[in-house]
């Protein structure tokens, strides 16, 4: 590891002098143009659809009518679509259900993973190998959809908000990431704390956790995004469409085109004169925004998480 860092330093210095990394000597013109084209095109392909959604959600009835559907640019913006979905009873409720499931699920699953990762971080523990294989085997062999479905039906969480996240509380991948990180921490830290009479719980809380904020942020994000984006649990385990989370409402209302807003549990919807398309796109925006707000803060730690997970897995 240290050699890489040194090489990196040397490159950084050389780059400052020449403005070039060593692999770029006599880079052909075709490559120089080609790489910008590739990167630029791929970035545009990602951005344009997202832009389209935001623009359409903000477009007025007139702009949508003229474009015949989706728009990329509108000079005539209005927030009516957002006012409409917020004054409906359906979307705020679905949003609330999604938020509760995501927050509860993320807290529980992160706590479970942190505890288990530390519990498995010392190979000398009795039964270590057996427990580790018990956990890792779940990565290789899944029990199958039908038996899990029947278990959920029979343990009393069917048709409750718990069904949205409890069956998915654990991912072996995240455990591998965190455990590898814990095992990479210098043992002197835990050993000296142990000599000072700290309990294992105290060591985990006061020594390990403060050093592990980055990988914990990454696995929490992975868990959180998973819960937020999940629609299949609702489809499987919820009978009453009034209790659907946001992704499920999105599926029914935007993808399958059913008219959700008006049948929203009997209450009157205040009509804000927004086109149907804009309202639908506003729901998409609401479903995307929480994830887009959180992930840039965690982005710089991704490399660590993904690489450890992939290599040590």
């Amino acid at each position, binding site marked *: 590891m240290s050699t890489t860092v040194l090489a990196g330093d040397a490159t950084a210095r050389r780059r400052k002098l020449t403005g070039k990394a*060593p692999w770029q000597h006599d880079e052909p013109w075709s490559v120089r143009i080609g790489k910008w084209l590739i990167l630029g095109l791929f970035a545009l392909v990602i*951005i344009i659809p997202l832009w389209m959604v935001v623009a359409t959600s903000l477009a007025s009835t007139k702009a949508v009518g003229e474009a015949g559907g989706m728009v990329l640019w509108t000079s005539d913006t209005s927030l009516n679509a957002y006012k409409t979905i917020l004054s409906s009873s359906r979307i705020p409720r679905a949003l609330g259900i999604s938020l509760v499931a995501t927050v509860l699920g993320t807290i529980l699953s992160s706590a479970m993973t942190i505890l288990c990762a530390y519990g498995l971080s010392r190979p000398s523990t009795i039964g270590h190998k057996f427990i580790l294989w018990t956990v890792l085997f779940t990565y290789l*062999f899944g029990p199958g959809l039908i038996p899990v479905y029947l278990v959920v039906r*029979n343990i009393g969480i069917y048709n409750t908000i718990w069904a949205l996240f409890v069956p998915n509380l654990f991912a072996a991948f995240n455990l591998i990431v965190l455990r590898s990180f814990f095992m990479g921490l210098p043992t002197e830290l835990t050993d000296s704390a142990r000599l000072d009479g700290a309990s294992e719980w105290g060591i985990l809380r006061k020594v390990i956790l403060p050093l592990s904020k980055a990988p914990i942020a990454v696995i929490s994000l992975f868990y959180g995004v998973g819960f937020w984006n999940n*629609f299949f649990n609702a489809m499987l385990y919820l009978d009453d469409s009034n209790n659907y989370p946001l992704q499920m409402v999105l599926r029914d209302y935007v993808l399958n085109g059913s008219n959700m807003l008006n049948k929203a549990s009997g209450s009157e919807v205040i009509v804000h004169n927004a086109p149907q398309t804009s309202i639908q796109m506003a729901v998409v925006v609401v479903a995307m925004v929480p994830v887009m707000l959180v992930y840039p803060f965690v982005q710089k730690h991704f490399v660590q998480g993904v690489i450890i997970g992939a290599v040590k897995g």
Partner: protein
Amino acid sequence: MAQATTGSEATRTVAGRSRAPRKGRTASVLDGQVIHHPSRWTRIKNDAPFLLMCLPTLVFLSIFHYFPMLGNIMAFEDYSPFSAPGFQSFIWSDWVGLENFRILFDDPAFWRSVLNTLVLTGLNLLLYFPVPIILAIALNSINSYWVKSITQSIFYLPHFLSWVVVVTLFTRLFSPVGLVTGFLERRGIDAPHIIGNPDIFPFLVTQQSVWKDAGWGVIIFLAALAAVSHDLHEAAAMDGCGWWGRMWHVTLPAIRPTIVMLLILRLGDALNVGFEQFLLQRPAVGPDAAEVMDTYVYYVGIDGGGFSQAAAAGLLKGVIGLVLVLAANKAAHALGEDGIYRGRPS
């Protein structure tokens, strides 16, 4: 360090990893020192906090993983949820042996789903797999820190969007009232019929995967590229190796282990082509094109109530998947690569 700690600690640090003492021995000699092995009970007592920490996960896995795994016994039964209350129905349903598998193998829809799954994996390897590698090599050669990190932010973003959002985006681009279709029609070009077209569907879903995850796949190759020693490039350049020569002889060999590992991982995962993506689009395209093994299990079992037949399909998929992963890992070792996991986890 060893002297400072308690007896049991010393055993661990000196005698090394987790080896329990040989049967019947309570002490052994190492480097002229007598080391007392703690009894099993002492070890459990000493390690209690660690074991307790693993407990929530173990309880969870017992309920949602290992118990359902036992529940797969229903694949050999004519399972009926009404045969007995609760979980007893797993025991009291009629035993039919391999009958469910016979029904499964006689069902053309099942074979259709297997075929679709394999075709999609093949397409994925052809059209998806090379994309992150090319993107990573291009991105790695960008000098500006800001351009690089903004590009990375954009590339990673779609990975965090749900399949519902991604499928919605593609529909709104390519459906008859979509943005691209409208754009083409205004210029008098006949837009191809893309959404809901079974012939194009395999390519459409592969492109959706590229859009969603190819940017994310860049991470692991970028890390491999960053670890390439620059001396190699300089030495090669000194010896008169041109840019393409260095690409072939330095850059690509450096990321070869990563490529092989991911390729093997993908092959071992051949039966998993993504579930939600197909579940969402099956109504629009029809089962002939959009049925994969996972959706087959869902539609036969949950939607159609054929629990046992679906469980049989799920079990078959799980077992073949396990064999594929193990075989792929063996292959990796045979090729001298690390594989997905090593012989024993450390």
